[in-house]
């Protein structure tokens, strides 16, 4: 390797990963011991939406694909789980179906977008439109004639009483609240670690390089279309799993998961938490959801107005998002503590390593 000293940012980034992992595990095992049932159920919902944020953060922040209709994959995952678990009973296969169906759909959609050389802005428009089309489509499935096997799609009313996850091979023993928490939070930690691994791999480095300069990547011999397609599919799989957890959380799913507000919400998670990080969108999800609940439980200002003000404030005051700002402060602190050294190049960290 190049005999250059490791930049503190690289060490900090590894430290950040380990800290995030430790925090994730601490929350995973600590929450059931400290929270009451209501709090734990609420946190299970947060975990599902944090996973959704993770998916958006990966595809937008690292692959540079402006997928503004990520709710399409959340919804597909949720519906795929609901339909298959009602038909199959045991939840093991339905979880896989909830991941694979959105991935395949993303593969098909992505193939036409990326290989059709659709420009970035139009990818945003197309993905958003597709999610709205799916919303309308599922919305129009009222009546008993719209059924897949034993599962009635139910139109606007959605699918109620979705069987919860169970341990593989024991469909009669659905997980209780604690079990669902462990499943959701465990899956979130796992998805985070997997995405970190993807970004640290050579595939991930090329994905980030393509985000930086597609022409150069092409002139080196990489096919950007393929890399973007694969990244898009990975993100869709993560969103699908989030949809599965979301359906489990309420035991219910309706077309609103495909809705515009879902797609918008997840973009806000990423903006608040920090574009170009993995941990930011997860934190953003929890923060925004918590704010939504807090805003709903007070009567001083209209809750939507209050939330809107908070978001405007964020975009104006912390446009990079929370995590990059905090990291910048930490780096500056370290610099100040080591004055004998030449100023470390903060940006010198491997970009793929910056994903905390």
């Amino acid at each position: 390797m190049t005999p250059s000293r490791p930049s503190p940012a690289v060490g900090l980034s590894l430290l950040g990963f380990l800290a995030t992992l430790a925090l994730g595990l601490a929350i995973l095992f600590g929450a059931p011991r400290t929270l009451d049932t209501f709090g734990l159920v609420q946190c299970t919902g947060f975990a599902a939406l944090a996973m959704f944020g993770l998916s958006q953060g990966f595809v937008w922040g690292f692959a540079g694909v402006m997928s503004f209709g990520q709710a399409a994959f959340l919804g597909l995952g949720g519906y795929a789980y609901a339909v298959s678990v009602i038909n199959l009973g045991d939840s093991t296969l339905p979880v896989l179906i909830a991941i694979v169906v959105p991935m395949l759909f993303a593969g098909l959609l992505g193939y036409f977008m990326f290989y059709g050389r659709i420009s970035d802005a139009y990818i945003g428009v197309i993905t958003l439109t597709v999610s709205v089309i799916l919303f309308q489509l599922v919305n129009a499935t009222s009546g008993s004639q719209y059924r897949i096997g034993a599962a009635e799609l139910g139109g606007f009313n959605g699918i109620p009483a979705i069987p919860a996850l169970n341990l593989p091979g024991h469909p009669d023993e659905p997980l209780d609240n604690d079990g669902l928490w462990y499943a959701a939070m465990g899956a979130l930690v796992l998805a985070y670690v997997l995405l970190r691994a993807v970004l640290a791999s050579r595939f991930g480095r090329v994905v980030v390089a393509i985000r930086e300069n597609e022409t150069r990547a092409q002139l080196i011999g990489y096919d950007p279309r393929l890399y973007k397609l694969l990244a898009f599919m990975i993100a869709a799989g993560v969103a699908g799993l989030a949809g599965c957890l979301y359906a489990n959380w309420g035991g219910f799913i309706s077309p609103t998961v495909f809705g515009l507000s879902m797609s918008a919400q997840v973009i806000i998670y990423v903006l608040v938490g920090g574009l170009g990080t993995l941990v930011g969108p997860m934190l953003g999800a929890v923060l925004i959801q918590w704010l939504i609940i807090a805003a709903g439980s007070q009567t001083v200002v209209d809750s939507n107005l209050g939330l809107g003000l908070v978001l405007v404030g964020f975009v104006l005051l912390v446009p990079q998002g929370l995590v990059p700002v905090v990291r910048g402060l930490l780096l500056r602190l370290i610099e100040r503590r080591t004055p004998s050294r030449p100023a470390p190049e903060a940006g010198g960290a491997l970009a793929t390593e910056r994903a905390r």
Partner: protein
Amino acid sequence: MSAPITPGAPLRPLIEARGVTMRFGGVAAVAGVDFTLGEVELRCLIGPNGAGKSTFFKILTGQLKPTEGTIRLRDTDITGAEPHAIARLGVGIKTQVPNVFNGLSVHENVFVAAGRRKSLARTRAIVDETLTRLGLTGIARSLVGQLAHGQRQWVEIATVLAQEPELILLDEPAAGMTHDEVHRTAALIREINRTHALIVVEHDMPFIRMIAKTVTVFNQGRILVEDSVDRVLADSRVRDVYLGKQAA
């Protein structure tokens, strides 16, 4: 026809363009160009702005698909092939406006270029060698977006070398460089040319004199003249097109 002029050039050309034409609407940026380059040959392309040099480079690398004509790289017809496919066949290009990964470090830029379909050990060896060769080791961890223009040019040349191409296209490699950097670039090009074929587009005549053996002059999308560097630079027609004397 433009047969290889270099004495002792091999019979089979490395790259051979026949009747290449690129029209944008009614304008022919490149009009019926025949161009041949031998193995391990160094060729300079000169010509006034808008003569079609960069367009020709874009056609060679697949960034543009020619309206007419064919391009062969050894035995392969690469006319209209995708840029990544042409790159995999061994064509590397430093573009006129630097195309680098601004958000990545110098090291990462070179690593991504070196690493396609190679083992990690081999990739690291190439990265080390390239960084040392271009004197970039000291700034290996710096973000490319924060470097000066000349340094970014070198980073781009490093990525091109790291992908181990057989034919290297350099579009204005000396632009924006200091006098000292220009000399280093010329030395580097001569060194690369010991093992690789190069086509260099430049406007800087002293620089051309430092490196060139054969020069091809483009004017208004066509090849005006192709000869040894001394004869080309003494050619009155070449002076005329540079000074804009030639009637349209």
